[in-house]
């Protein structure tokens, strides 16, 4: 789905765009007519593939390397977008990692690494983007949370905590920047068929699908469609929202 008519040619940055939900979002924003900076950290090849796909959709693309956990790297990434195009008007924080393990055996580094990328990383990018958006009196920020952040998830205390933290981050930013025409929303995907889910076994994937009222895993494109809407002019009256794209898994949360 595209929103090209209302929102042509804005400058968008999608972190974690080398694969999964980030890549699908980069593509959806390209189809909406935006210029898309493709943020990546470890998977250069994947980012290059996203760039090719964005360009094939008729939009300009720019790969920017950014370990979102490092503020200096985030700063450099934004600077390269600003020098090539203009300040970022649409920011989607899709960079995320998992390092699953049971609480009893979870190491400090395992905890810290997941918090660093998924929570600190989003904070770093939102903070960096906010000055330009406030000055422009327009901005769209969409963070990618998880149904796990609302429901809890055995074996993912680090991941679920980071994703739950994004609720408070998103809503605080929404309040702080509302008067400047900047919206900030959170999408909470359920189980989505991406590389992140490949690490769990087939049995577990089947269980996950069965737990979802709609009876199947979601696709990255289905999440990207919701994100593209929240990034559009049409979503101007939506801020601080937690938008589930989870097949009904999180209903009531």
């Amino acid at each position, binding site marked *: 789905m595209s929103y090209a008519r209302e929102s042509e040619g804005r400058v968008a940055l999608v972190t974690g765009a080398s694969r999964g939900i980030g890549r699908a979002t980069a593509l959806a924003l390209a189809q909406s007519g935006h210029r898309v900076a493709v943020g990546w950290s470890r998977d250069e090849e994947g980012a290059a593939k996203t760039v090719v796909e964005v360009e094939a959709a008729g939009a300009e693309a720019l790969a920017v390397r950014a370990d979102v956990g490092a503020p200096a790297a985030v700063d450099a990434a934004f600077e390269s977008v600003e020098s090539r195009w203009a300040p970022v008007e649409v920011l989607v924080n899709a960079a995320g990692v998992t390092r699953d393990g049971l609480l009893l055996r979870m190491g400090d580094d395992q905890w810290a690494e997941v918090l660093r990328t998924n929570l600190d990383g989003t904070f770093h990018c939102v903070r960096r983007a906010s*000055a330009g958006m*406030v*000055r422009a009196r327009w901005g769209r920020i969409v963070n990618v949370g998880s149904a796990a952040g609302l429901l809890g998830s055995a074996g993912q205390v680090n991941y679920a905590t980071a994703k739950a933290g994004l609720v408070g981050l998103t809503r605080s930013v929404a309040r*702080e*920047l509302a*008067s*400047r025409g900047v919206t900030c929303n959170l999408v909470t995907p359920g189980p989505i068929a991406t590389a992140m889910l490949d690490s769990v076994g087939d049995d577990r994937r089947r269980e996950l699908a069965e737990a979802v009222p709609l009876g199947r895993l979601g696709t990255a494109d289905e999440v990207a469609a919701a994100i593209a809407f929240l990034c559009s002019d049409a979503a101007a009256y939506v801020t601080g929202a937690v938008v589930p794209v989870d097949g009904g898994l999180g209903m009531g949360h």
Partner: protein
Amino acid sequence: MTRDDVLSALRDASVEVLGVEPGAVTEEANFHHDLDADSLDLVELVMVLEERLGVPIPEEELANINTVGQAVDVVLGRLAPTP
């Protein structure tokens, strides 16, 4: 940089950020009551000044700023720190 230079830079920034008339930006003007600025406006103003004057203004100084004159004092203090 003289006091007048700083006031002039602050006046320009206030006109841009707050959309006020230049004449309203006097030393006695209160940001909140006279210029209708909220806390986010003040941060924006400070960021513009930091950029233009090349002087960092720490967060804790912001709490002491109510009037334009106080803002000028803070910037001057940062430009020429007392030895």
